């Protein structure tokens, strides 16, 4: 598909726009619709669009499969790790009040950190599913 000029242009120039929108949705989950899951899917869409136009080999040079596996595990560990940190600070699991001196600020910090974990995991997993399906063609 990379011989088509329009697709090549759009894929190159829209990739940062989509990624920026994904980050906007991620961090504005407190104030509007959004949050980790939606942002993760949008970010993975950016990469999938690029891979559809330029091919799997180019995309795998940027994001190899092993890196995605580590990213997916890291997101879950961030989420569960925040819960463990709140337990170590003396509260119950995921009791965000303990994360900062002011309970309200603790709630904000807690939500942002776990949504970050969710966003990382979801985008990595969506890309891993795409890689698994797309690489299947080579085995036939």
């Amino acid at each position, binding site marked *: 598909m990379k011989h088509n000029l329009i697709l090549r242009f759009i894929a190159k120039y829209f990739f940062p726009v989509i990624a920026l929108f994904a980050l906007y949705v991620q961090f504005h989950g407190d104030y509007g619709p959004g949050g980790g899951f939606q942002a993760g899917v949008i970010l993975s869409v950016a990469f999938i669009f690029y891979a559809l136009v330029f091919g799997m080999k180019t995309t795998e040079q940027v994001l190899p499969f092993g890196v995605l*596996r*580590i990213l*997916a*595990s*890291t997101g*879950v*560990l961030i989420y*569960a*790790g925040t*819960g*463990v940190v709140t*337990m*170590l600070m*003396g*509260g*119950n*699991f*995921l*009791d*965000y*009040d303990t994360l900062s001196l002011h309970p309200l600020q603790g709630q904000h910090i807690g939500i942002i950190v776990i949504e970050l974990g969710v966003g990382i995991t979801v985008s990595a997993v969506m890309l891993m599913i795409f890689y698994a399906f797309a690489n299947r063609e080579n085995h036939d």
Partner: protein
Amino acid sequence: MIEQNLCLLLVVIPLLAAPITAMLPNGKLPWLMTLTVTWLCFTLASWQLSIVIDGSVISYELGGWSPPWGIEYRIDAMNALVALIVAGIAAITLPYALRTVEKEIPLQQTSLFYSAFLLCLVGLLGIAQTGDVFNLFVFLEISSLSSYVLIAMGKQRRALTAAYQYLIMGSIGATFLLIGIGLIYAETGTLNMQDLHLRLQPILDHRTVHTGFAFIVVGIALKLALFPLHLWLPNAYKYSPSAVSVFLSATATKVAVYIMLRMVFTVFSSEFFKITPAENIFLLLGVFGVIVASIAAIYQNDIKRILAYSSIAQISYMVLGMGQASVLGVTATLVHVFNHALMKGALFMAAGAIVYRVGTSKLDSLNGIGRQMPWTFTAIFIAGLSLIGIPGTAGFISKWYFILAALEQQSWLIALVILLGSLFSVVYMWKILEVMFFRPATETDLPVSEAPLSMLIPMWTLVLANIYFGINTELTVNVADTAVKLLGVVTYHE
């Protein structure tokens, strides 16, 4: 700090371990990590049972939000028993799994296999610990999704279709459960089990509540493999890897029995259960399940399929006990949940050992194996005695309680069906034992040696536990009694 957060650590420790295991290099390291985590969970689960065995209840608020606004983990004797069974079976399966996983799973998938195993453990333990119905649905889906993955890792290609069929039927069951939860949420506005119980009491005659109850019961019955909805179970148990068969057969359906008990007796109440047709339906389907599944088991010629149909029959016993809706009936169900996990765990471990040495589980290829694998054969013999219900084994205790429960309600037909089920199990266990011991080995069969020690020791631990819990019933019966008192089951004498 550990004691304060105990009931939560049981879920969080495997949850932290699962992504770490996915990142480890393939080989023995994921197995070692999973072994440590499951043994840790087993110690935590035994500690938890020792705290609640006298009837006290642990209540833990997630996130510091008190119920009913927040999610609550509420542990009483029944939860602790189910958590102990799940953690115990997982701890016993891991030493067994080392050899079978090496043989059956390709090397580059080993770390992902153990990661999926840990996620299944997280889901099952989470179901046992939680006190919130939507949290229950989420953990149920976590355990179901990971079990679909585990079953699909079997060597033959039929494992894929078995996993697909289980996926479709399991997802329909979980969605029915979700519809039921939505309907009772619409009526009461809360998702906490204790709060639902209080708020449902004045509105029990609304049609929405009855519909929600029907959806919940049918959804859980799909996961339970109750008689007409059991079609996924034989293929799923036959084609999955040996370690997965042991783990899933001994835990997944028992946890579904626990969910049914929790929803029917805690959220709704036993008086409500009596006025719905669900009680008679359970009795009817239980009777059919015992007879049809036992007869189907007799006609199979593959040892894993015989054990799978036998599992369906044993689940039908538990549903019969629930259908009695009396104190003795529910006690019998809880005791059988514990004992059946021990029995089926041992039997599937023996079947896995046979597959490891011989390569197949078809009865035609097993002529005279018993004489070449004496320890495995004796394990099948003793576990088979327990399945039939011979005095001195754990199976006898559960059958005794079932018959007592049926006689107390004067249902002679049910007692007859229970005895008939035992008779059928004699026939199909004898079929296995006869082929293994009394037939001479044909010329085409290669000589096999005994199963390796790492598989024999867990097998014999479960077999000896069968005999121990058949003689010293203090643990199981005490816990079951405490649990039933807390459930609030009321016996009606007709």
